[in-house]
C-alpha cells in the first residue's frame, strides 16, 4: 500500500494492511487487530514444527538474496550449548528501497512478533534489531514498541509465560551502506568497523560474537506471524504460478512514476501492471526507459524487459536482472542513463569499505571514467575499459558491493550504448527536454 495512497484493488495487503493506521502502533492496538496471536501459537509449537511450517510456506528472504527462510533457520546447530542470536537487518540502506521503514513506522509489533517467533525457533534468547542510523522516526517507534512489549510480557525472561527468555536489543547503526551486508552488520554490532567478513564460516556457525546466528530482513520476519496463524498452504497459494516464489511482497516504487510508494502484491505479479496501474504510470507525455528493480545493485532493465517481466525472484532473473530488495527505480525518457549510472557508481565508491582491492580502487576509478564521459571528454575506448574493469570487480571480492557497482555499469553500456555514444559525439550532457 503506497501510503498515503489508499490500497489499490490489485494489491494483496497482508503486511501493509495497517499502514497509515496509527492505532496499530501501540501494543493494545496491535492486539486488538489480532496481533501477538502468531507468537502465542508459536510458543505452543516445537521449534522444528515452526521451521517445517516456514519451509512449507516457501517464504524466502526479502532482503535481496531470496534464500529460503525455513532452510536458513534449520542451519542453526542444535544442542550445542552456545548462545544463539537473531539479528534483524533493519539497515535498509539500499537506494530506492523503503519498505522496511514503513513496517517499522506503522506496524512495529509485527516485526517484534516475528523476531520473537524466530528467536524461539532458532533457540536464541537475544535478538538484535539493527536499525539504519538515518531512520530516526522508525527508531523512536521501535524503541517505544519494544518497551511496550516488555511491559506486556511479550518479551523478557518469561515471554508470554512460556518459560522462554526472549530479549530484544535495538541497535542503531551509524549510517554506512555496507552495514546492511549481514556480516558487516555483525561486526558493527560487536563494536568493530563494519567490514564484511569472509564466508565461510557462515553466520549459522559463527555469527555475531562468534556464536551461531540467524540474520533476517525486517520484511521476512514481519511475514512470519501471519504464516503461522493462517498456515503455510495459505501463504504458498499467494503466488501467480511460480511455486518457487510465494507469498506477498512489498515493492517500493520510486522515480518517474505518478504514484511512488510501497505496493504489496503477490509474487509473480506483472511488472507492467505494477508500474502502470498501481504506481500510476509515467508522467504525461513520457515513456518508460529503464527500471532498476533490486534497489540499485542489479542490472538495469530496458522498457521491453520491464514490461514483460513478472515480479518474482525467477521472473526478473529471466529478464536479465534480479529482484534484490524490490526497490524499483523507474526512469522515463527524460533520464540520462550515463548520468544515472555515474551517480550509482559514485555512491558505491563512497560506500566501499576499502577492504578488497578491486572494490576500493575499482569503484573510484569507474566513477572517474564516467565523470569524464559526462564532461564530454570521454573516448569510445572508455566503454571497453569500463566493461573490463567491471569484469575484474565481479565475483572476486568478499561481499557483493563491488559486483553491485559493476552491474548497473555493464548493463547500462550493453542496453543503452547509444546514450554513451552521444556523449562521445556531442561532447556535452544532453539535458532532458
Amino acid at each position: 500500500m503506497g501510503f498515503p495512497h489508499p490500497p489499490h484493488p490489485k494489491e494483496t495487503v497482508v503486511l501493509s494492511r495497517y499502514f497509515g493506521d496509527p492505532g496499530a502502533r501501540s501494543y493494545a492496538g496491535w492486539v486488538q487487530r489480532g496481533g501477538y496471536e502468531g507468537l502465542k501459537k508459536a510458543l505452543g509449537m516445537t521449534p522444528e514444527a515452526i521451521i517445517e511450517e516456514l519451509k512449507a510456506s516457501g517464504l524466502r528472504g526479502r532482503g535481496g538474496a531470496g534464500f529460503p527462510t525455513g532452510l536458513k533457520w534449520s542451519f542453526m546447530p542444535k544442542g550445542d550449548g552456545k548462545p544463539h542470536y537473531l539479528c534483524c537487518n533493519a539497515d535498509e540502506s539500499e537506494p530506492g528501497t523503503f519498505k522496511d521503514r514503513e513496517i517499522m513506522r506503522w506496524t512495529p509489533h509485527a516485526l517484534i512478533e516475528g523476531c520473537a517467533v524466530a528467536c524461539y525457533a532458532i533457540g536464541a534468547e537475544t535478538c538484535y534489531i539493527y536499525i539504519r542510523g538515518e531512520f530516526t522516526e522508525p527508531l523512536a517507534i521501535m524503541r517505544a514498541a519494544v518497551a511496550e512489549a516488555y511491559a506486556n510480557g511479550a518479551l523478557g525472561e518469561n515471554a508470554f509465560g512460556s518459560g522462554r527468555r526472549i530479549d530484544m536489543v535495538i541497535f542503531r547503526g551509524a549510517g554506512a551502506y555496507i552495514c546492511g551486508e549481514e556480516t558487516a552488520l555483525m561486526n558493527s554490532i560487536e563494536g568493530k568497523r563494519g567490514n564484511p567478513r569472509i564466508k565461510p564460516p557462515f553466520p549459522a556457525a559463527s555469527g555475531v560474537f562468534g556464536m551461531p546466528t540467524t540474520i533476517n530482513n525486517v520484511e521476512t520476519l514481519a511475514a512470519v506471524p501471519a504464516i503461522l496463524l493462517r498456515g503455510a498452504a495459505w501463504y504458498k497459494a499467494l503466488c501467480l504460478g511460480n511455486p518457487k516464489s510465494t507469498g506477498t511482497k512489498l515493492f517500493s516504487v520510486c522515480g518517474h512514476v505518478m504514484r511512488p510508494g510501497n505496493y504489496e502484491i503477490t509474487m509473480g505479479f506483472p511488472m507492467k501492471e505494477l508500474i502502470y496501474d498501481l504506481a500510476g504510470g509515467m508522467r504525461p507525455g513520457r515513456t518508460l526507459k529503464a527500471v532498476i528493480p533490486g534497489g540499485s545493485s542489479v542490472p538495469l532493465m530496458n522498457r521491453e524487459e520491464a514490461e514483460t517481466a513478472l515480479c518474482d525472484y525467477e521472473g526478473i532473473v529471466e529478464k536479465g536482472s534480479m529482484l534484490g530488495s524490490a526497490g524499483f527505480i523507474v526512469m522515463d525518457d527524460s533520464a540520462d542513463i550515463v548520468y544515472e549510472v555515474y551517480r550509482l557508481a559514485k555512491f558505491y565508491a563512497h560506500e566501499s569499505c576499502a577492504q578488497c582491492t578491486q572494490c576500493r580502487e575499482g569503484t573510484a576509478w569507474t566513477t572517474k571514467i564516467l565523470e569524464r564521459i559526462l564532461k564530454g571528454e570521454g573516448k569510445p575506448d572508455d566503454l571497453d575499459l569500463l566493461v573490463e574493469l567491471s569484469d575484474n570487480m565481479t565475483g572476486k571480492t568478499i561481499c557483493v558491493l563491488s559486483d553491485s557497482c559493476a552491474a548497473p555499469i555493464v548493463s547500462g553500456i550493453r542496453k543503452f550504448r547509444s546514450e554513451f555514444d552521444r556523449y562521445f559525439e556531442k561532447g556535452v550532457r544532453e539535458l532532458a527536454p
Partner: protein
Amino acid sequence: MSTDLVNVTIDGVQLAVPKGTTIIEAAKQAGVLVPHYCYHPSLPSPAVCRMCLVEVEKAPKLLPACVTTVAEGQVVRVMSEPAMKAREGVLEFLLINHPLDCPICDQAGECELQDYVFQEGRAGTRYSDYAKRFSPVEDFGPDVLYVPNRCILCTRCVRFMDDVAKTPVLNVSERGDRAYIGIDQDERLEHPWSGNVVDLCPVGSLISKDFLHKARAWDLDKTASVCPGCTQGCNIMIDTRDDVVVRLRPRANLDVNRHFICDTGRADYRWMNRGDRVEVPLLREGGKTVPADWDAALGRLADAVAGATGRIVVLASGRASLESLGWVRRLFDGHHVTAAIKVPLGGTAPLPGIPDLALRAERVPNLDGARLAGYVAPWDEAVSAMEGAALVLLLDVALEDAEVARLAGAGSVIALASVDDERLKGSALLLPVSTMAEENGTYMNRDGRVQRFTQAKAPPGMARPAWWIAAEAWSRREGGRVVPETAALAFAGLGGSIPALAGVTYADLGVTGRVLSGAAAAWTDRPAGTGAR
C-alpha cells in the same frame, strides 16, 4: 600434528598435505608461490587483497588461497588464465594510486608490488588521465614512518598490532579509495616490537627511519645469523653494505621467533661497525708493548698456559660462541679453572601474541651455551678469584674500571679483545679477535637450542676467532696436534668434552638449529694427550 592427509593437485603437482592446510601453504609445498599481499603466515588472514585468487576445479568462482583449506581430490590452478587475469586486475587497481617512486623508495628491490607486477602485471597504464591520490608522510613512531601514497591497505601492520603485539593502535581510517592506515589519537608506535611492521609491509609504505635512504636493497649482502641481544636467540639476517652492517632483520624460525624480532635487538648493531679495533697481536716485552705475528703470539700463549701453576680465571663475554668458549676452556684442561661469563641484565618485553617469545632479562645470547662449556662460576666470585690467580684470560669481555683494577692481583693477564682498550695495554698478551658478526659459530638459547650464525663481514687486520687462537695454542701445548681449521670442525671437536654435543655437526643444526637433549651436563676435562682430532 594431524595425521589425516588430503590429496590435492596444484598446477599439476600431486601431493598430500595435512587436513586443514590452506591452499596457499599447500602450494608452497608443491613449489608454487601464490602471489599474495595481505596473507602472512604469522598473522590471521583477512583475505582482503584478493591477490591470491586461484582457480579451484568445480568451484563457481575463484577462491582466495589464503583462507581456503584443501579438500580431498581438489585440483587447483594457480597459473591458469582466469586466475592470472584476476591477479592482473588486482595489480592494475593497486597501481593506479601508487606513486611509482621506486627510485627513491627504500623498499625497491625487495618490494612485493614490484615483484608481482614484473611477474604478471600489465605493462602500461590505463589511468594516465587522472591525478593519483596524495597524502603526506606521517611519523608513526620512534623508528617508523608511514608513506600513505605507497600503501596498498593490506592491513598486515594493523593485524600485527592488534593480534600479535596486542596493542591495537593502528587502524584503517576512512572508506573507499580515501582509506589509509591511521594511528589512534595521541598514540605512537612505541611497543617494543613495533618495528616489525616495517618488515611486514610488503611495499615501501612503512619504513624505518634508521635505515632511511641508507642503501639500495640490491647492494646489500644478507647473512643468516642469530641475534646476540638476549637468551631468546631470535634468528636474524645481518644486512651489510660494503662490509658495513646497515640493518638487522628477523629471519623466520617458527620455533623461536616466528617472523619477528624486538626493537632492542633490531637497533643493536652499531658495535659491529666499530673502528677502534685491536688489529695486531701485541706482546709485552721489557715494559713495552710490541706487535707480533701470530706464530710468536700463539707460542707465548702456549708457554703462559704451560707455565701457569695455580688457579686460572677466565672471564668471558656472553657473546662468545660455543666454539670459542669450548676451545678456550680446553686450552686449560687439567688446570684449576674458574670460568664465568658476564651477563648484563635489562627489562623484559614479551610479544603477547606469540608464546615463549620475549626480549629476555639476560642480555647475552649464549648463557646456556656458556654453562654447557663450564663457565659456571658466579661473576663476582670469578672476579674475586683473580686475586692471586696464576693466569687470567679475558675473552672479549667488557670490564668495569673496578674489575680492571682487580687484574693487578693476578700473575699474568692475557686479553683476547676485539675493541682497543687502553686499560688492557699492560696485559702480557693482547690478541685481536673477531666479533660474532665476523665469524661462524653457534649459540645455545634458553631452550637448549643450538643455532648457527654465519660470518657477515670481514674481521679487521689480523683478528681471528677466539676458538682458533685457543686451538692453536692448545696444539702447541699438545705437541702439534691437528687443530680445527673451520668453525664446523671446531664445533665437532667439542663433543669430546661436552657430552650433549657428541656426534652433532653443523649439518645437523641446519638453518633453524636443534634442541639438544641432556644439555644440562657440564664440561668434562680431558686429560692432556687425548682429545678431539
